[in-house]
């Protein structure tokens, strides 16, 4: 465990003590700062006019749907492209700079290496989610809101980020080139959303159910609406485990290849 922490600590320092991470955070903050006040403003105006439109759907008067959901969608879009940028160096660069030799000749197991690096990636994603969470949190100055569904929604997006991180470190472990790792990782991240299209193209109800279940969208929507479903957690957890396991196998394979 102490070795996992040693690797994790080193990589976390690599994220949080490097200017690159802060440049990314700054750019994300710039996007949020542009979009969030606008969305909030629109919502406030809609509330004012709602008095004259008694037949307006209730959902449109809910800040969670009208303001926080777009914020989470933007965050999700950002994560699809930023998580690969954060994770691409974790293995690819080590291989390229031959520092991987150090890890492979140290008394650590492949699982410890992957776990350490994965924890570090999670910490970086947590940082981005926290940054994004500051905006809804700041809204409490003007409005009274329900904390529990908001926190569960952000937990949901964090778990989705964790799924991206698992797929992306796997992509990074496959290649020596950071650019290839990045492109591969973005394709992985987008692929899990495109899987959901299958729901519309197949006819058999069983196939539909399968596609519905493996589509990230379904699971994320439930969490974003503030409901924690165990089947979602198990599905997302097994995705994370699967890709971390694949990554561990790739690292281990360099010992006998």
């Amino acid at each position, binding site marked *: 465990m102490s070795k996992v922490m040693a690797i994790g600590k080193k990589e976390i320092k690599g994220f949080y003590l490097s200017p690159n991470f802060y440049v990314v955070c700054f750019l994300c903050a710039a996007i949020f700062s542009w979009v969030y006040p606008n969305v909030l403003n629109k919502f406030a105006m809609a509330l004012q006019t709602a008095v004259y439109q008694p037949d307006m759907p209730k959902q449109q008067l809910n800040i969670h749907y009208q303001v926080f959901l777009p914020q989470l969608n933007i965050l999700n879009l950002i994560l699809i492209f930023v998580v690969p940028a954060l994770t691409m160096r974790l293995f690819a660069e080590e291989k390229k700079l031959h520092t991987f030799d150090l890890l492979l000749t140290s008394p650590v197991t492949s699982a410890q290496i992957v776990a350490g690096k994965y924890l570090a990636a999670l910490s970086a994603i947590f940082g981005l989610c926290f940054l994004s969470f500051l905006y809804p949190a700041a809204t409490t100055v003007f409005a009274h809101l329900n904390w529990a569904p908001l926190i569960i929604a952000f937990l949901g997006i964090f778990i989705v980020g964790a799924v991206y991180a698992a797929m992306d470190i796997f992509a990074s472990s496959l290649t020596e080139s950071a650019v290839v790792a990045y492109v591969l990782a973005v394709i992985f991240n987008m692929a899990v959303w495109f899987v959901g299209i299958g729901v519309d193209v197949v006819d058999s109800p069983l196939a539909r159910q399968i596609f519905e279940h493996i589509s990230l969208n379904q699971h994320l929507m439930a969490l974003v609406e503030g409901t924690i479903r165990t089947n979602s957690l198990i599905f997302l957890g097994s995705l994370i485990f699967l890709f971390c396991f694949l990554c561990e196998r790739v690292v281990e394979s360099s*010992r*006998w290849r």
Partner: protein
Amino acid sequence: MIEVQNLTKSYGGITAIQSLNFKVNKGEVVGFLGPNGAGKSTTMKIITGFMAPTSGRATVGGYDVFENPIEVKKRIGYLPETPPVYGDMKVRDYLKYVAELKGVPKDRMAKNVERAIEKTSLGAVEKRLIQNLSKGFRQRVGIAQALVSEPEVLILDEPTVGLDPKQVAEIRDLIKELRGQHTIILSTHILPEVQATCERIIIIHRGQIVAQDSLANLTNLKAGQRRVQLKVRKAKAQLDQSLSSVNGVIGVQAGAGDQDWMIDADASEDMIERIASHVIQKGYGLLEITSAKADLEDVFLKLTYGSNQAATELEQGV
């Protein structure tokens, strides 16, 4: 301490090393010698558990490197060809990180890092980012990294590459100092390095061991023979035929220039006298005659590049 049996490694169709067998005892310093691409690095990588052999086995401290890699890695400090340093870390932080990875207990951590910095004289740069250091300093950080866990076995792949002559001398002194406490294997193709530091030499060529013995035994490979270098005034004289008739001369070869000759002869006391008087009598014009002792370089070239003839050609080329 280290035992290698029938070790073979092939990459695809290329066989990098073929049935290597050798043994290194505790506290020994062994030089791994061979031309580029002979399979030195491959052998070292297998011993460190970094890659698996195609067949055969290697053990370190009684543990098989493939079956029990973690136990082996605990006992090994390894400096690869490219020092495995992170550019974005400071020297001291990096060494501390390596010590943590190698499982050095917390109470010994600071002491070990201090000692590694001191032994490789990195004190002046310990607070600088590694990416800003020169190649020589990075190499020293690489050596410090191998030392920091105080391993029983040190495996150094070309430890003095990129260092200036003073640093090379320092590293050699360091290796001499470590002798006895650590078992050391170092690979190189720089011969004086081996002569200066190693007790035993393994010469490897095209993936096979061509010789393994102590330095003294290897350089006396041609026991009872001596080599004489001769320089005469007359260029391109037909010396080889005429000299062959002298009693005790074994072989005559052309040397580097038109006037130079190399003579292999038996080690009898008056050999030089006899050759000299022959040259003078025949009127070739003796300019220089010296007795050259066969050194490691000769042995190395002979073993790795085949015949003496090839060795001379190579020398001329240089």
